[in-house]
């Protein structure tokens, strides 16, 4: 009730100051935000992610591995990450995965598509070698179409040369 009344007070004061600007929208937005604050406090105080959650896979294990220029060879760091990814997938067998291969912008469009496919396949093959069923995974290449970093220096390129394991919610049999 404390949270709710705070939200109502905020609503009231802001609503007054924005008298010409759509009271209904102000109410709606602040009401949602107020309620959300109360709920969002819980995970912050409890800390660690549940080991079987997709968030744990993405953040604690790491959903991506990086590659050197114009290569699809897994690095030692990459293999360590993938070993943990495989372990997670072998534990959480109801999930599927799409493995996206990406390239940095230094290359022609078609070649980068083929290079991204190589990177995605390298990850898939490694996960299969660690016991993950081939049929749970699909690979896709985005070439240089979807950089995550937008600068044109190695600092960004090194993060864009990646393969990302995207966990799907859909269960497999």
């Amino acid at each position: 009730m404390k949270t709710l009344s705070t939200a109502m007070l905020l609503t009231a004061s802001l609503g007054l100051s924005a008298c010409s600007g759509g009271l209904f929208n102000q109410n709606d937005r602040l009401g949602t935000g107020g309620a959300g604050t109360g709920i969002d406090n819980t995970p912050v105080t409890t800390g660690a992610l549940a080991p079987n959650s997709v968030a744990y896979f993405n953040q604690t294990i790491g959903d991506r591995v990086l590659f050197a220029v114009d290569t699809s060879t897994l690095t030692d760091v990459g293999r360590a990450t993938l070993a943990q990814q495989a372990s997670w997938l072998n534990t959480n067998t109801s999930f599927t995965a799409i493995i996206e291969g990406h390239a940095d912008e230094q290359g022609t469009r078609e070649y980068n598509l083929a290079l991204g496919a190589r990177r995605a396949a390298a990850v898939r093959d490694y996960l299969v070698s660690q016991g993950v069923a081939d049929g749970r995974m699909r690979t896709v290449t985005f070439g240089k179409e979807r950089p995550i970093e937008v600068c044109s220096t190695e600092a960004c390129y090194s993060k864009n040369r990646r393969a990302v394991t995207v966990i799907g919610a859909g269960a497999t049999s």
Partner: protein
Amino acid sequence: MSCDFANMTPTSRKLPNEIDACGGALQFWDAVKGYPYMKRFFVVLTLVMASVWASVAAAQEPLRIELDNPNIEPLPFAAPNFVAETAGADQFAADLARVVAADLSNSGLFREIPKEAFISNITSFDSPVQFADWKAINAQALVTGSVSTAGDNQIVVKFRLFDVFSEQQLGEGLQFVGSTDGWRRMAHKVADAVYSRITGEGGYFDSRVVYVSESGPKNARAKRIAIMDYDGENNQFLTTDQSIVLAPRFSPNGNRVIYTSYETGFPKIYVLDVGTVSRQVLQDQPGTMSFAPRFAPDGQSVVYSLTTGSNTDLYKMSIAGGAPAQLTSDPTIETAPSFSPDGSRIVFESDRSGTQQLYVMGANGGEATRISFGQGRYGTPVWSPRGDLIAFTKQNRGRFHIGVMNTDGSGERLLTASFLDEGPTWSPNGRVIMFTRETSGEGGSSTLHSVDISGRNLRAVRQGGSDPSWSPLLK
């Protein structure tokens, strides 16, 4: 495909003309009068004037631009407003002359003499030309024209080309009849005729470019297939921006476009009918990805890259469907295939040597011959429509170039250099190359550029565009 525009869906946004689709490109005007499809664009050729000059002209040094001359000076020309012969044609009279002049000037081969310099004007299309007035301002070529409106939203455009200093008409007068919304095409046809008569080679102005229109931030770029006139006008979108689309390519007659789309979440090849904007997936083998498609010169088959697992090879399949034929079977990357204009050979890129290089093989696969041996990496080869050259993208020491080489790899010439140039496409006459230039950094964006194969006349054509494909000359 239908000639009846009324059948089209509202989203199809008919192009101002659909000549190929309906057949009958060039017809004499008398035969066309009363033709049922009056709304269609007709290009009608008639003799405006009997060619009494032809034999006389032979005695003079002809007005000529040699395109292979490395030291071309732009030829000065005058293109006064066309003569409006009916009420309501005034705007067309000015606009037609403006587009003709822009086409010729943009080619880099001609230099327009500004109207302010004119001593006299053309007020009657059929009166004798006062050559002294045009010589005085050093107009070596003079383009005169007339335009009249006709019923049913038609206009009739006539033009003549004069060699001012020899006081001769150059070639016959021509007349074009078309719908008012196709007026730009008539201007392009006039400019093509002028270009052709003075260079002795085919023109390229009455043509279109299909490309990828880009918007939004670099890490979430929205892409749509779009089509425009060669000069960037009459832009129309052929797809929405809901999924990534890449590298559209015209069919040989310009009626269809083949491209790569992620609409299933995975790259697949689609064929799109330009007139109806209906599309269908061409290649949908489960668990594979396909991209980099290009038509064979006969328009019946398509060559493309297919990725299975980590490996990308070249395949060919009929546009009508059926089993694909595998053209390469190497563990390396084989992509970016392009047919020779006679359909007998395919040039492509492969990293089988360790880096991206260009190779030529027969149209059904087999042994391939490496043709690129310079420093750096070579990709996206495209065979010229004249058959004499191959355009390519080259990466060397952190820079990108568009270049051309002979089909055996000799005579390499780099035409451009920048942070990122790629994806050349040829003008219908094989004299100009359009390509993508991308700028660097967070605000980096793509712009379509063109450059002559001489390396001169680099021009920005359209901002927010990539992956151009130039159509054949329209009929």
